[in-house]
């Protein structure tokens, strides 16, 4: 079975393949981590799926705040 850590490693390798500079690498990595955590919550239905777009935007706003 492919474990969660192996999946994470594939994600990291893929990001490294696309983004060579450290800053972009960190931003994308953090964003994808949060996206998957959020999807996990939807999957387990501990939160409602209807606010998906709004919640996604909240995640994005945290990563790229308005004043940057």
């Amino acid at each position, binding site marked *: *079975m492919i474990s969660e850590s192996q999946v994470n490693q594939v994600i990291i390798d893929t990001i490294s393949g696309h983004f060579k500079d450290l800053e972009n690498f960190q931003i994308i990595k953090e964003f994808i981590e949060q*996206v998957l955590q959020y999807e996990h919550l939807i999957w387990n239905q501990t939160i409602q799926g209807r606010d998906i777009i709004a919640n996604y935007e909240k995640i*994005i706003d945290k990563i790229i705040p308005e004043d940057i």
Partner: protein
Amino acid sequence: MQFSISSLRITNFRQFYGTQELDFKLDKEKNVIIIYGRNGAGKSNILNAMTWCLYGFEIQRKSNIQNKNELPIVNASALDELKPNGKISAEVVIRLKTKDGPWSIKRRIEWSKNAQGDKNSVADSEKLTVTYPDGNQDITLTGSETQIRINQLLPKALIPFFFIDGEQLRNFFQISTPEQIGQAINYISQMQLVTNAQEHLEWVEEDVRRKVKRTTPKVDKILKDLEFYKEEERTKSGMLHNKNELLNTYLEEKSEIDLFLKEHNSVVIRQLQGKRDLLDNSNQRINERLSRAKVAKNSYLVDIAPFIFLKDTINESHNIIQEKVEKGELPPKIRETFIRELLEKGKCICGNPLIGDARRNLELYREKVSLSELSEIVIIGKNQIEEIFFDIHNFTEKMDEFADEIRELETEFTDNKLQLEEISENLKESNNEEIQRKEDRRTDLEIKIRELEQTIHQETLELESIKKLIKGKKVEYDSELEKDQKNIHLKKKLRLIESAITVLNDTEKEIKDRIREQVQDNASSNFLTLISKNRAFQEVIIHDDYTVEVIHTLGWNAINNLSAGEYLIMGLSFMSALMSISGFKAPVIIDTPLGKEDDIHREYITTNLPKYLKGTQLFLLVTPTEYTEEVENNLKQFLLEENYYKILVNEDHTKSFIKREG
């Protein structure tokens, strides 16, 4: 999560009258459980009772929608015996053993009789109750969370890999399309989260684009175009999805007809179908070779065409070079001549005398440039031109070679096709009406499949073009955003979303590829282990497009020529590979596992499978014809007496009961 079934209680479910209680003793070595019953006694309904209890559907029923005239889920005799205004329930309770403690899962549905006693109806809809341990206490759930709990134990999508119908398993590799095999692998890969994330990110991306302040006149137009193409993409994808599903249904039906003819009682029909299989396989190979030959011919044409068009110019250049070579002007020695002159004059171009170190350096340099880069290029160029001439000269011959190969393959293909048509006509002339009907349907299906494949190919190309247009529009859109500072922030967001989609998409592909390779390796090793005495095969390959090959020791692909027993072992090997990769350890329940097996394969399965699944409960629901003396002897070492149950049926076949035999 790992679990085993410690007991099963079935009350008034389908033909099971009253309450039937089955307790299973757990033993790592003796992992087999036998439930024995003749055809129609209710073996499949044991499988159905389990999936109904756990997931609310019956795995062995074609439709899970209760039809008005269909037998109700509650036992018909018990319902019939009910007094007016009376109530009765169908109920299944499964108790599980997990490392955290015992679980109990109960599903029940209540039926009632009206006051006149002539009408039955559902009095209370299905209720699911799950009790599971949490620390030192037991928690009982009855609401919507119950199904989520069970899915954590074993996701519904994985049921076909644990609750298995022997007949379906045997036919799996005969009737499954590569897409269905791919789907099974994708279920196991459980990349749903990643797929969902991509879909949701696309929603967010569209939403962010809509928010862009339309301060440049072009943005509006681009956005409209983008939304138009996105809509086109969605529509086209949906249509393609439906067409692919329809194609799969046709392919599946055609495979079922082929299987029927292959297993038909008449030797002539079996032989005709066998011959058709071989011709079909041969035509598939010819088709592949034909496409390769056509691609090779086209690539050759693309390579040589410029030279053919420029033949005269190349010829002229060649003549010029040749003339210069003959005159001794080539290879050029420009720099060498120049340096030699300087050395002879003993004067630099600036007028100073060439003496001492300056002269020595120039002498060394003269040696180095004796074969100048330019002269090398000219020599290579000259040789290349000669090679091009050779190619041009051989053009006609080479084209003839391609044409001969293609013609030969096409002739072979047409010959096979004629033979295939003849076989079809022979089958249509059969005395058996069913064969005629099936053969007519097969011809009809072949036409539909061909047409649908062409449409799908065409529409896939169209979808690709739409995707390219979308990509182009996005680039255009991004460059427009640059023109207004106010949009910089949104642009950053968009870039983040797009990057995340790309990363997730690549990750999904990579993981699926790895899982496909793992399933392939496991299935291959399982197959060779389960079929250990048979040395005819060397490996199982699952290609990128999910086509499966079973490689014979002589190198042939034997997937279309396996025996019924080998197909079952192949199905079991594939399912076991999927099971182990899924990471879920649940009991395996196989209905009619040895139906059409010959003695050798029965022996392989009954001696190797329990060993192979050591530590996993293996429920075998067997008929008297399957459970021969030899099978019984083979299974003895894996079977505790207490784990042997028999299904008994009353005289008029309306009520079934389960009794422990051991």
